[in-house]
């Protein structure tokens, strides 16, 4: 009798991130399609001037894999050591991406200036390398 109950309890309230309901990947598919539409709509409007900074910005955004890395590296399940190390390396790699990606994008953007001086409100420092 015990196991049945345990099974039921496990099935009933297992944290969603583990026991995904069968239909769940359809909503994931929905989210993916809509996000792609937004992506295409938004990227098409990025001015040609900014294509290089855009590339480094999206590169930083793709480092969202850091979320997965944290789940593996910091997971409360008793991961075997080599799994946790993999997570840590992944975390290190994506964190580097994030930091360098955002910094270099900002550095490049600071250089773009209209005739009357600094674009946008921020009174940034000189644009020298």
């Amino acid at each position, binding site marked *: 009798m015990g196991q049945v109950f345990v099974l039921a309890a496990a099935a009933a309230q297992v944290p969603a*991130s*583990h026991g*995904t309901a069968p239909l769940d990947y359809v909503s*994931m598919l929905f*989210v993916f399609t809509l996000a*792609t539409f937004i*992506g295409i709509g*938004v*990227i098409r409007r990025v*001015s*040609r*001037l900014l*294509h*290089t900074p*855009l*590339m*480094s910005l*999206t*590169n930083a*955004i*793709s*480092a*969202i894999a*850091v*979320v*997965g*890395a*944290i*789940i*593996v*590296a*910091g997971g*409360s399940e*008793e*991961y*075997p050591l*080599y799994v946790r190390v*993999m*997570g*840590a*390396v*992944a*975390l*290190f790699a994506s964190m*580097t991406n*994030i*930091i*360098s990606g955002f*910094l*270099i*994008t*900002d550095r*490049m953007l600071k*250089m*773009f*200036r209209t*005739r009357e001086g600094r*674009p*946008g409100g921020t009174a940034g420092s000189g644009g020298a*390398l």
Partner: protein
Amino acid sequence: MLVELAYLAATVLFILSLHWMSDPRTARRGVGAGVAAMVIGVAATWARPDIAKHLWVVLPILAAIVPGVWLSMVPLTAVPQRTALSHAFGGLAAGLVGTAKFAYWYGHEPEMLTAFRMGAIGLEVLLGYLTFTGSLIAAAKLQEVKWVPQRPWVYSGQQAVNLGAFGAALVLGVMLVVWPTEPWSPWAFGVLVLLALNFGWMLVMPIGGADMPTVIAILNAYAGLAAVAMGFVLDNKLLITAGALDGSSGLILSIIMCRAMNRSFFNVLFGAFGQAQAKGAAGEQKVYKPETPDNAAAILEQAGSVVVVPGYGMAVAQAQHKVRELYDALKKRGISVKFAIHPVAGRMPGHMNVLLAEAEIPYEDLVEMDEINPEMPRCDVCLVLGANDVVNPAARFDTSSPIYGMPIIDADKARTVFAVKRSKNPGFAGIDNELYFLDKTWMLFGDAKGVVGEVVKHLGDGGR
């Protein structure tokens, strides 16, 4: 529950961040939104109840600060290599997380490996490791690292080998999806990983150094899709949306670049463009008319409107600051100065814009190719500065030329043309350039920085 809402907030911020990139004035707010989104994403994940080993999280983050900052201080000309390298990091991260999750679930919670999730892991690992090795080679090619051949590395049965490996990976993938928790599954998984690593190498090697920027854009898309696959595996909406945004951006950028180079998407990927061309038909020896910087300065002074066509040469010579001095000198004399930016001038999309912006040249004077071409006939002096293919009239009529059909800047329509380059060898596509032999074209041989410096000096002292 709160974690999910935080993910939603991060998604909205990512969308806004890309939205604000549509205009240089609001671009920096876009970066701010991106950072905020990332911070929320990381914080929300860290605060999840099932995250306990905080030390394992803090150490790698701290360790990443130094390389992160160092990588961002890289000189501008090295931006392409840096982006390729960080794509390699991104791919590695995705691949590792996929492998880790598979290893853990296989050992401890086999019932988690449903067909759908196994498929997602397979995709994540394939895309991740492929991006990893592919990006490393792309970075090496851009850095012109010695042991990696610039020219596309083509061998006879190459297509067959590629297809064979691809087929094997597909079969392995299907087998894993159907029997994810068999005793032999980890071995199949291992082989799949090796195959994926191999793919990166096989796909990028045969592509010439020239097309690396497009390759980087495509790898950017693959890294995004790997993040999407990871999102499917971990049922995490933020991963899916951010990955989709990144994937679509990589895709669109590579399509734009292919269109600007007037070459089809697949041709870039698979056609081994840029093989060492048989030297152009020698025919009668064309005559170069060399000119001296001071004469050029004299002619420039009489000009009413000047158009500068920057190219890869200006980037290599780091001549943008000298060009700024030329810009100021001419502007002081009331001469209108415009920069004709070809979409694929240099080696990165928008490469010229960034360089000229770095020299603090107002971006209103950077004019797109389609806008400047109609005005070229009225331009008095056209200064071709380290550009070659992008001003080569052959693209208009010579069907045999590899750049046939590529839209170019009509430098040959200007009244007088000065071409600055160091030697007589061809440009990136390895073909001769008719422009140099027109009677209105005068050559200024030498390093871009040096030549422009000379001209500015002569303008300076001979000032009216």
